[in-house]
């Protein structure tokens, strides 16, 4: 659990620091720098993940409010969402179009900031982290899968899967451990049955293959939580089922915590637990 304690340490330090002296950036960059230099931290990418035994809250949202401004109108999207995801859980968030499920997911994954309320990751508040801290969270602790796959068209399948490792490492650091990263990426692609498509560009792949690549990319840095935004929304029935099978297997075999947003009840019911979102509020299931 060494990496966990490191994480607690730095998120805690950062929160404290942010509350205390918001302008002293060198301290912050030092913290991030130390985190990046921590060998134990780097080992996350290659060493086997610790089996999760205790079922405790891993991500929690408390009274999240978020609204969008359009011209002079304020459109409320999330109106006090309360949500707790436990470790190893497969949760689906279901609701009609425009109820704010995607926004909730973005807020949980720190892609977007809530207007009020707080997000906690393993008990630490993360919504008010500085940008560098949120970047590291998204890079190493969260995996993201999107409806439209969002692969980089210039890169091959393998390079797309390697992207998080490249982003998280310095040029030199990546270069030194490129074999291990490559092995890990190939392993992930094998896991989603794409071992034979390493050199293909996204434009040469089918929708299902692209989504599987996106899952491999989300998994490559051994995330604690996988956020999936309508992962089957753009796929035909059989491809969608294939994706869901992969997600279920990941959850079952690797005890991966998955938060999935969907509007399709048939997809949602494959999860352990469904949360219904109506008009920006969680409705009891």
């Amino acid at each position, binding site marked *: 659990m060494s990496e966990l304690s490191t994480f607690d340490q730095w998120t805690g330090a950062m929160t404290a620091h942010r509350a205390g002296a918001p302008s002293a950036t060198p301290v912050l960059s030092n913290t991030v720098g130390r985190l990046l230099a921590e060998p134990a931290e780097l080992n996350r990418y290659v060493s086997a993940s610790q089996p999760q035994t205790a079922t405790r809250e891993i991500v929690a949202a408390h009274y999240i409010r978020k609204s969008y401004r359009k011209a002079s109108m304020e459109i409320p999207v999330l109106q006090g969402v309360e949500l707790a995801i436990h470790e190893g859980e497969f949760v689906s968030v279901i609701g009609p179009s425009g109820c704010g499920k995607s926004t909730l997911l*973005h807020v949980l994954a720190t892609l977007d900031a809530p207007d009020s309320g707080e997000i906690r990751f393993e008990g630490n508040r993360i919504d008010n982290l500085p*940008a560098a801290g949120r970047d590291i969270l998204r890079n190493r602790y969260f995996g993201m899968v999107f409806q439209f796959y969002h692969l980089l068209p*210039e890169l091959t399948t393998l390079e797309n899967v390697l992207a998080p490792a490249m982003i998280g490492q310095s040029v030199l650091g990546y270069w030194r451990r490129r074999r291990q990263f490559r092995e890990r990426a190939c392993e992930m692609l094998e896991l989603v049955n794409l071992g034979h498509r390493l050199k293909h560009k996204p434009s040469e792949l089918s929708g299902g293959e692209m989504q599987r690549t996106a899952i491999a990319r989300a998994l490559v840095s051994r995330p604690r939580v996988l956020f999936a935004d309508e992962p089957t929304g753009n796929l035909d029935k059989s491809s969608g089922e294939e994706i869901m099978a992969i997600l279920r297997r990941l959850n079952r075999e690797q005890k991966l915590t998955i938060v999935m947003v969907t509007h399709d009840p048939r997809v949602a019911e494959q999860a352990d637990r469904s949360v219904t979102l109506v008009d920006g509020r969680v409705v009891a299931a």
Partner: protein
Amino acid sequence: MYKLLLCWRYLKTRYIALASIISVMLGVATLIAVNAVMKGFVHETQDRLHGFLSDLVLETASLEGIPDADHYMQRIQKVAGQYVAGMSPTVVVPAMLGYNDYNGRYITQQIMLIGVDEATYASVSDFGQFMQHPQNRKQLNFLLKEGGYDVYDHTLADSPKRKARKQMQYAGWAHRRRNAIFAKRIVAPEGSLEGNPFYRPGQASLADEIAGSQGTDFNPATEQHTGCVLGVSLCRLHTPTNEEIFRLLPGDDVEITYVTAGRPPKPLSAKFTVVDFYESKMGEYDSQFVFVPIRKLQELRGMVDPSTGIANFSRIQIRLKAGADLEMVRDLLRSQFPPGSCFIGSWLDRESPLLGMIRMETAILNVLLFLIIAVAGFGILAIFFMIVVEKTRDIGILKSLGASRRGIMSIFLGYGFSLGIVGASMGLGLGLLIVRYISEIADVLGRLTGQPIFDPTVYGLPEIPAIVQWPTIATIIVGALLIAVMASILPARRAARLHPVEALRYE
């Protein structure tokens, strides 16, 4: 790492960016070529100026001159002997040149008459190298040669573009003898004039009169007057086909009207025989100066003190040893010869306006050409904004994977930098190629347009001079890279500031 990878991929896949690469390339290539050619011209001009003028000149204010060059040279030797490689006194006086051209027309031209010491003058400047007779280039003297004057300009080596100066093959004693035949009086055979109604025995003929006025014991076919060396432009004409025609040739006689050193100066004239031309390729000098032996000029002008034999001089030209500091020696001599009777200047002092002008032209050209690269920079700016818009979603993806603002920004800065690198290195290659083959390029362009781009006779150079200077090239390349990076700052900032969620939604 992803930054490098993406830069590389963008470079390989965005062909629109080639447009900006090409404009950077052309800008850099033009800058390199123009700088090389300008530097080449500056170098050539300086070379010629320096070749014609010696390093330092001690000159007097009055046409009358001041006495005793030997005394002055000894003083110079004592003060700065360790720096001095050679010295030569000269007499300089404005004069008029008069001669009959081939139409029999009498032509008068304004000249600068310079009396030089043929033994030492070649050691203080490259004057000897400008002569048209090979022997004079070895050791200058004022005697007419039998023939063998250069028909081709010897400084143009064997450039195919040099044109023959056909008249020069007749120059020399051969030409003089031919002239003498035409001037020889015609003697009627004995008895042939009997019965001619116009014949008046005992009356001198017209030819007799001409011969009589020239003196009796001077035979132009075998004798010469004191020799003089004319600047080649003084008696040269260019035909419309750019061939050179000479109104005078070595072997012809001229009259030079000079002023005496007396008070007040009086004009006198004397006959000289043209023994050679000199061509320094500096138009100003080639069309003004006529060189004669110094002793003869001093005698003619009455500059020699009859009781002591000591003569006046107007200048002492000084050549310094290689590596001597020009300004230091000049200042050293200035301190020894306070201004009054004489003044000491260096060749750079005399020609600084000309060199300054060339330098200014180069600077202006550089500014203008850097504007070309700046235009390329705006091209990069526009293209980058396009690419940022096109890549908005990718930027969102990168951010969702944890890429920092700085990371996104450095992708586009790096992209701009690599466009700059590619453009600048292609420009470097192209520029060096242009410099290397500049004459050939000028020929081709000349043939295409029907108008010669570079005429060797205008500047008197076998080909366009070009000197590549690596510090200049380094400055150009750094400047181009800077412009490329600066142009990508704005689009890169815009990319970095995109909101990840909005970027992801962007279609």
